[in-house]
């Protein structure tokens, strides 16, 4: 229904939409900030995908270029161990992408399963889930992720799990409230009348209609997953060495390099902020497109 509204608006605006490409161009003009976010995300994805093709090497240490200034051989300088900062940032995009996508997909999957079954089936299960969500939401995202990461132990996979779990309750809550209202829709009643099983109704009729809010929420989660990963790695409890994580690069170079090697502090932080800014811009635009009721 949300999509429909937008198509109508396009028609009213007299937009000459002939294909996917021109509708994309229309949306880019309509939401310039979202377009900027989209461009940032494309650059980020390409960086992560093509990191191996650049010929950069994020692992080789070189005592001679320890703390080398930016310029010359090391465009963005080198860290204490003489590793190239640019190479580590480029390869770090892979880690950020893996964590962001991994944690978001995992969190959304369990959030949808829990939210859908509790909203659609209701009953004691719904009550239990609601209390559980209350409980999990009383712990700040970072605190929960910290405790989870510490008890699971440091690895890329565990970092993803530690970030995914605190994301589950907010997804479950949104999907639940959607499922609650969708449950009363006439087409659900119709499906029931023709003898469809409850589980099948939930999967074929309710689930597809929760897609729009899920996409909106998912994009927002991408950014917060990246931020939490960087904070965990900054505190030394996230992605372990030798993975070049952006947050980890900052922890290695934290306060002591503020004075002597500011490039070690500036560049990884710029990378994190730019990507999160991109996801936020894109997320806002996607929300406006998919959910016109919330448009602001």
């Amino acid at each position, binding site marked *: 229904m949300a999509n429909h509204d937008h198509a109508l608006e396009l028609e009213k605006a007299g937009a000459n939409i002939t294909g996917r490409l021109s509708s994309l161009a229309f949306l880019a003009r309509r939401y310039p*900030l979202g377009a900027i976010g989209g461009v940032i995300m494309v650059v980020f994805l390409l960086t992560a995908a093509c990191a191996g093709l650049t010929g950069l090497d994020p692992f080789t240490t070189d005592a001679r270029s320890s703390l080398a200034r930016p310029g010359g051989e090391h465009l963005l300088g080198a860290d204490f161990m003489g590793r190239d900062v640019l190479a580590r940032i480029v390869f770090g995009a892979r880690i950020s992408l893996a964590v962001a996508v991994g944690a978001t997909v995992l969190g959304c999957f369990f959030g949808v399963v829990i939210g859908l079954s509790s909203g659609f089936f209701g009953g004691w299960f719904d009550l239990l889930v609601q209390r559980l969500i209350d*409980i999990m939401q*009383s712990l700040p995202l970072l605190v929960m992720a910290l405790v989870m990461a510490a008890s699971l132990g440091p690895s890329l996979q565990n970092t993803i799990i530690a970030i995914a779990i605190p994301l589950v309750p907010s997804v479950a809550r949104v999907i639940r409230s959607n499922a609650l209202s969708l449950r009363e829709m006439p087409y659900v009643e119709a499906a029931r009348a023709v003898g469809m099983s409850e589980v099948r109704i939930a999967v074929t009729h309710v689930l597809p209609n929760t897609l729009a809010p899920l996409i909106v929420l998912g994009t927002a989660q991408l950014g917060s997953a990246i931020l939490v990963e960087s*904070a965990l790695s900054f505190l*030394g409890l996230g992605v372990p060495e030798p993975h070049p994580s952006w947050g980890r690069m900052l922890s290695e170079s934290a306060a002591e390099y*503020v004075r002597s090697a500011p490039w070690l502090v500036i560049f990884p932080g710029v990378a994190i*902020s730019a990507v999160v800014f991109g996801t936020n811009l894109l997320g806002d635009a996607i929300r406006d497109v998919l959910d016109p009721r919330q448009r602001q």
Partner: protein
Amino acid sequence: MGTYLVRRSLLMVLTLFGISVLIFVMLRLVPGNITDIIFDSAGFVNERQKKKIERELGLDQPIITQYGRWIAGLAKGDLGYAYVSEKPAIDEILPRIPVTAKLAALALFFSILFGVPLGVISAVRQDTTLDYVLRIISLSGLSLPSFWLGLLILMAFVHWTGWIPIYQSSPGNLWKEIALLSIPAAAVGFRSSALVMRLTRSSMLEVLRQDYIRTARAKGASDTSVNYDHALRNAVLPVVTIIGIEAAFLIGGLIVTETVFNIPGVARFLVEAIRWRDYPIVQNLVMFIAVVVVVVNFLVDMTYAVLDPRIRYEG
């Protein structure tokens, strides 16, 4: 109001009980315990000594007994002993609370001082250049990792003054302390004010679309009167709930910012305790954080019920 209060209080107790179970289980997810870690780092295992330590720490008891002991202790104000310092956990935690509380209060003050007025301006001037600029600022505030912002502030201080604003344990008088704390508080508060600004803006926009606003305009009230007398009064209500959301949001910022600025508060202590695997400290600190969040949210809900009668009656 009475039944609402009772219902809400019962729910709070239930939530806190659930949190305590959750924390307890989370910390015991992994096989092995503190003694394994102690002996792992020592490189050899002395079975007899290991058993002795387990007995001393109560780790040989069934998990239910361990949980029961913890909760019974909590009720009496006995939080057990820190593994690392071997001092009572409460003596480690309590002295660290005031600094963090001051920092959090300052950050909250900053975030409301800037967030609410800028959010209102952004909503009233919706879709103007000013609105776009403010929205980009608030969105970038949400995109900067707060520890990085802290590092940038440190860097700026070093560059322009050659001096690092590191917190000292005895800053002299209260005003000096506030001046020192306001630097890290600005780092935490910037992110929070971005959140407050966004929430204020959307709540203000919501109100501006209401029928009574249209009525006010129709009867010829001036823009200023509509925006500030009719809309702002009603938009401020949801802003109260923001403080509840803020409570959880601020703590994340405090954890990294206290680490960056080397402030000896509870938030940094949590990270240290997690690194040392000092479970009595971690367990009690996480519980403390949860209690703060839950109680703040409870108070916010109560304030809201007092301010908005609809909530009470729907109960």
